[in-house]
């Protein structure tokens, strides 16, 4: 039981982190029509910013996180204006490779600004604070990550559903050309989407930083899981990838604990492939209509 409780909260935490990253990916997929392979590295880069200020000036973890969120916003805006917008007419496959270009630029910038050593980053609430539930320790930091992520995503859904800006985002996501003709500011929508996605990625990075430390491939696992979450949940809704993220986190944690550390992931991935065969557009996805 103790293990179960521990795994349960652990999965909620990783699920939340995957969900933040997945939401960033789907936001960009819908508004810019590209798979953003750089999502993880954008987060990593800004996590470096936070860790750098923390180590260099000894600033408080909350303050450096705020700074990182601000630089994330800037990163998103810069990437959109300088790279993504000029590539608007590029074919979809090449556009994805543009995001590979972004990865390489960021990978090159990291040692230039922050050196080659991995940087340590603390949790937001020190891990000694926690409560005991059925023998397992529930850290306040875990609670914090879960609550903040869920609140943030809830706010985003509300925003997308009920505000004018949210409407503009949904319209852009469903058909950019028509939206442009109808006077929706698609350019700003895309820019804000990149900024938001960058912030989501950065939060995810800051949340995993304490356990993997800040280094270039710290987001590898998160990013991969976020893609898988998007596919499982379906890229045609915003809620799908979030649900997918929690499912993947739970499935991976529980199979690797109860079945096999080695074959757990393989099992989960294979099952998702089988699932996709029967529901090719994910849990919540719909088949796009097309006519001959």
């Amino acid at each position, binding site marked *: 039981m103790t293990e179960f409780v521990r795994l349960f909260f652990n999965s909620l935490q990783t699920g939340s982190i995957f969900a933040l990253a997945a939401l960033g990916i789907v936001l960009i997929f819908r508004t810019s029509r590209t798979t953003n392979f750089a999502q993880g590295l954008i987060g990593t880069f800004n996590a470096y910013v936070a860790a750098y200020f923390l180590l260099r000036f000894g600033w408080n973890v909350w303050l450096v996180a705020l700074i990182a969120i601000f630089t994330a916003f800037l990163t998103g805006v810069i990437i959109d204006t300088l790279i993504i917008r000029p590539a608007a007419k590029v074919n979809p496959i090449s556009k994805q490779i543009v995001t590979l270009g972004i990865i390489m630029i960021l990978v090159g910038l990291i040692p230039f600004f922050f050196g080659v050593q991995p940087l340590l980053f603390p949790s937001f609430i020190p891990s000694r604070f926690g409560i005991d539930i059925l023998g397992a320790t529930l850290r306040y930091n875990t609670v914090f990550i879960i609550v903040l992520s869920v609140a943030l995503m809830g706010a985003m859904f509300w925003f997308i559903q009920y505000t004018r800006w949210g409407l503009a985002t949904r319209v852009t996501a469903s058909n950019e050309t028509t939206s442009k003709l109808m006077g929706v500011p698609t350019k700003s929508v895309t820019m804000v989407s990149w900024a938001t996605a960058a912030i989501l990625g950065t939060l995810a990075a800051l949340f995993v930083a304490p356990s993997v430390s800040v280094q270039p491939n710290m987001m590898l696992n998160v990013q991969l899981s976020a893609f898988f979450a998007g596919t499982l949940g379906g890229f045609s809704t915003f809620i799908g990838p979030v649900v997918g993220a929690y499912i993947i986190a739970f499935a991976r944690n529980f199979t690797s604990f109860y079945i096999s550390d*080695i074959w757990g992931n393989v099992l989960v991935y294979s099952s998702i492939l089988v699932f996709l065969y029967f529901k090719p557009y994910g849990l919540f996805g719909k088949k796009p209509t097309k006519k001959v």
Partner: protein
Amino acid sequence: MLTILDNFTKRVHGFFQGHVYRNYLLFGAAVMMIPLMHNFGIIGSGTLGIWAYIVIITVVALGLNILLGFSGLISLGTAGFVGAGALGTGVFLNMGLPFELAALLTILIAAAIGALIGFFSLRVEGIYLAIATLFVGEILRQIYTQIEIFGGQMINIGAIRFLGFFTLNANPPSERRFLFVIIVAVMVLMMIAMHHLVHSKTGRALLAMSRSQAAAQAMGVSILSYRLIAFVTATVFATVGGVLYAVYIQNAPTTAWTLDLSLFVIAMVVVGGFKSIYGTFLGAFIIHGIPNLILAELFGDVSYIFSGVLIIVVILFYPYGAIQVFYDVRKWFHKGRLKLTTKRSDRSA
């Protein structure tokens, strides 16, 4: 007797006349000059290794070009199959099988997985298919890193015995240069095979399938068959690349076959040129050669920035790939000649 000889020379002549062969063979011969430069000490072993990698990865990227360029399909699982080629060959060799059999078995197994993906692609499309191939790549990677027989970080392969009688080792430079010649020969063969394939009924059907599925079906092109053909050929090319890796490097890491590698191979096709065979080599050179041969020397770690910028710039300005530069130059050249001749005829008139 004379007629036989005559016939023979005619055939040889015809062979080179068919300029397809001539061009690829000349190209291969040019690349084979590189070890000669190594021999005379003009370039170091590291540089030779980089060129070898370009040759190997070109074979992989050619296969991906069949998918991306011709069939309009994408795979993010390429790295998994290159790994399969290298590790599979290693495992079978260590089990005592002769090299040719080891390579063949590896390729067949990988092709079967490729066929499975082909089936899968009939139901799943777009980004879902792309990420499904990423799942396959990840599953393969997990297997490589976890499974016992691959024995940890790396499997040692050691000298390769070709056709059961001559053995080549990566170690003395003379033998390594010979290995280089062998992998270039394989690359040229793969280029020629791909050339034939894409200029045949198969190539047309692949294009038809990707450009207009409706027209393809109405003309009798079975989407299932050609999806299978596309994925199986791409897989076989990737696996052959992996086998060449085993042949040249003579050991195979278990952890190197990640999404990054798959993305780089896609980048080679995109940057070099969709549907272009020489463009694929050019892409491999731009993505792997330029950073490692030139930029790394100049800038060290920071060279990644330049590679990234290079990729983006090429995509923005040469949407059909860098090979377009050559076509532009040729066109420009022809135009120049045309102008000259018309001028001359003007004068005579």
